[in-house]
């Protein structure tokens, strides 16, 4: 069976055109232009090919390539082919800014996207603002919606931590327990969790009884685990970096086969890691947040299989080419969706070249609803143009038989919070 892009629509080109029309163009006068030039649109991709984000970078590149192929098969953007220029930023903020300058200069890129790690985003955003370069990040950090960046920096492809945490806290409190100990990286991403979860769980009738921050460069965690208070009902963990597997294994060794609290983790702790790895057996029965369900769910939507096939991921979240190569499935959809948002934005803006970059930002700011589709395979979303932040669904899964089975899906509204900034009131 040939996968369809959306249910009732008959052709790919029409769907892609419709996305632009139904999303951004609803609030912005359509400025569709016929292709004035056959020159490719060039997009810069800030890739974590090396450094702490390398495991993500590998899959982000594959996802971007897959989305690019689909975009070009569908006629490109405004009738022009699209190219992506990948540059390794070393997951380093200084190099991130340098790479953005390269995109704006010799690479001749029209827009930049793809960065995940917060420090790279924060280190790059000032240059994006100065060079007036649309900079679409995939970082989950609250730094965009908090108002600390600028008008040229947007996060339309993935929800931020504050939204994720707020959406899930009620379920944790009602289902797993009310006394929570948090274990998180002593790093801005972890601090977003720390700062957002405590008030969220309090509002849901629970409380955080301990917060254990672990330096991101740590390689052994045994000395931190005895700090978990005896009265803990739920351990909330979210770790990133090369030592995540060690962390989870040592957590299992710490409790052994004895009684333990409920465990709720962010899949960040196990992205690119096989759940069936030796030492992870204790995770059976624990719960995880997933941005996108790694294992194909029985009730998966119609766009799930085509998306998996396109990005080269099997039903278990591993590479189709190598079952030992586990994807960063919970996050990499953000790259895919961001590319389609760039396409929709450029088409709504009638984008012709760098002189239209401001129109592109305005077109994305005008977007609101993003329905579930092959362009948004993770789920429906709502974009807030004022805060430059998208809001979407969150998934809670339980480890059963060494696989993650989804047990709860939050609503869009669960993750929404009052605006903290209005970027549209800022000058370009």
């Amino acid at each position, binding site marked *: 069976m040939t996968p369809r892009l959306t249910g009732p629509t008959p052709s790919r080109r029409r769907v892609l055109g419709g996305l632009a029309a139904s999303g951004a163009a609803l609030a912005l006068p359509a400025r569709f232009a016929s292709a004035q030039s056959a020159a490719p649109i060039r997009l810069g991709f800030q890739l974590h090919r*090396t450094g702490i984000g390398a495991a993500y970078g590998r899959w982000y590149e594959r996802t971007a390539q897959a989305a690019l192929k689909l975009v070009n098969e569908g006629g490109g953007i405004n009738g022009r082919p699209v190219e992506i220029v990948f540059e390794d930023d070393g997951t380093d*903020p200084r190099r991130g800014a*340098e790479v953005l300058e390269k995109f704006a200069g010799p690479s001749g890129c029209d827009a930049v996207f793809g960065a995940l790690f*917060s420090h790279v985003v924060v*280190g790059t955003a000032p*240059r994006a603002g100065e060079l007036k370069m649309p900079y679409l990040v995939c970082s989950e950090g609250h730094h965009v919606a908090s108002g600390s960046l600028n008008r040229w920096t947007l996060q339309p492809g993935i929800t931020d931590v504050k939204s994720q945490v707020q959406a899930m806290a009620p379920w944790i409190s009602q289902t797993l327990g009310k006394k929570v100990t948090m274990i998180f990286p002593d790093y801005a991403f972890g601090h977003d969790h720390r700062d957002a979860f405590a008030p969220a769980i309090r509002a849901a009738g629970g409380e955080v009884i301990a917060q254990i921050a672990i330096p991101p460069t740590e390689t052994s965690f045994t000395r931190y685990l005895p700090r978990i208070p005896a009265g803990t009902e739920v351990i909330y963990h979210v770790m990133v970096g090369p030592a995540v597997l060690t962390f989870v294994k040592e957590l299992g060794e710490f409790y052994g086969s004895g009684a333990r609290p409920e465990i709720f983790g962010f899949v960040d702790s196990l992205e690119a890691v096989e759940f069936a790895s030796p030492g992870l057996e204790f995770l059976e029965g624990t719960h995880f947040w997933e941005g996108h369900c790694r294992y194909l769910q029985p009730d998966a939507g119609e766009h799930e299989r085509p998306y998996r096939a396109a990005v080269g991921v099997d039903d278990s979240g591993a590479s189709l080419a190598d079952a030992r190569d586990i994807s960063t499935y919970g996050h990499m959809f953000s790259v895919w969706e961001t590319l389609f948002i760039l396409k929709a934005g450029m088409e709504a803006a009638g984008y012709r070249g760098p002189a239209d970059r401001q129109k592109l930002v305005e077109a994305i700011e005008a977007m609101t609803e993003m329905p579930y589709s092959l362009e948004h395979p993770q789920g429906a979303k709502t974009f807030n143009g004022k805060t430059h932040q998208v809001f979407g669904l969150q998934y809670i899964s339980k480890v059963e038989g060494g696989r993650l089975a989804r047990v709860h899906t939050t609503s869009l509204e669960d993750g929404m919070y009052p605006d903290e900034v209005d970027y549209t009131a800022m000058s370009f």
Partner: protein
Amino acid sequence: MNGGAAKIWALHLGVLAALLAAQAVLPAYHAGNLARIMVLAVYAMGFNIAFGYTGLLSLGHALFFGAGLYGMGMPVALAGWGAGAGLVAGLAAGGGLALAVGLLALRRAGVSFMIVTLMFAQAGYLTILYYTPYTRGEEGIVIDRAARVLMGLDLSQDATRYCAALALFAAALLVNLALVRSPFGRVMVAMRENEERSRMLGYDPFRVKLAALVLSGLYAGAAGAAYGLLFGYVGAGFASIQYSILPLLYVLLGGAGTVLGPFLGAALMFYLIDLASGVTTAHLLVVGAALLVLVLFAPKGILGTLRDRGLTWLP
């Protein structure tokens, strides 16, 4: 002025003149790169004062660069200080920390000194992370564009940024040149070559090395503060071990104990990474191979090798 001095001044002033002209000639991208390279070269020049001229191999200079960065960034971002005051605060933080570290670390020499400076730098890095509610830790702080105005000049503008970086670089270069040609500079070299003999001649090695380390810290602090102001970002990553190694690589590549070596090394390393990354995904392998070649065939760095092979007047 003798012939050697004339050559020295002609070379260094010529480099500055070329850099001044480069802004008008180079595309914006490369001019931007040069601005960044000049700031990093100031940092490396500071490292060179300690390592190349005085023989103090520190693995903790990121502490001084980070001190300059945060010494400027924290008051500007949190207390609303102006860019000028922030720059002075960064300079003072770099020099002050170098003095404090020097008073303790200079009781050791050689490998012990390296380890002690490395530990101090790690302590500084972890301190920044510890106070994340204020420093924003690894994620860092954006320095608002409105705060990046120095004497009416908007440092976020490309041309102004370049001129500011060049002004800092020129001042650092000329002071460095004057320093190494001064009697004190010769005493620094004497410490590097033979500390015991210098002591016998009546010099106090501790004082000389402390003064060199403080000067080195002032350079690093100035570079850190300038980097934050010019590029609008302050982050803990700049205080990590990587940024203690980078100036060492710049200096080794360009030539330890040469005034222009740090600039040459910073520029070559920058473009080696930049160009290699456009050709291969294994660009770090290319950088590693280049460093191996350097160590094998030009262990004194490029300018150090040239000095050995004829340019004996090179300071």
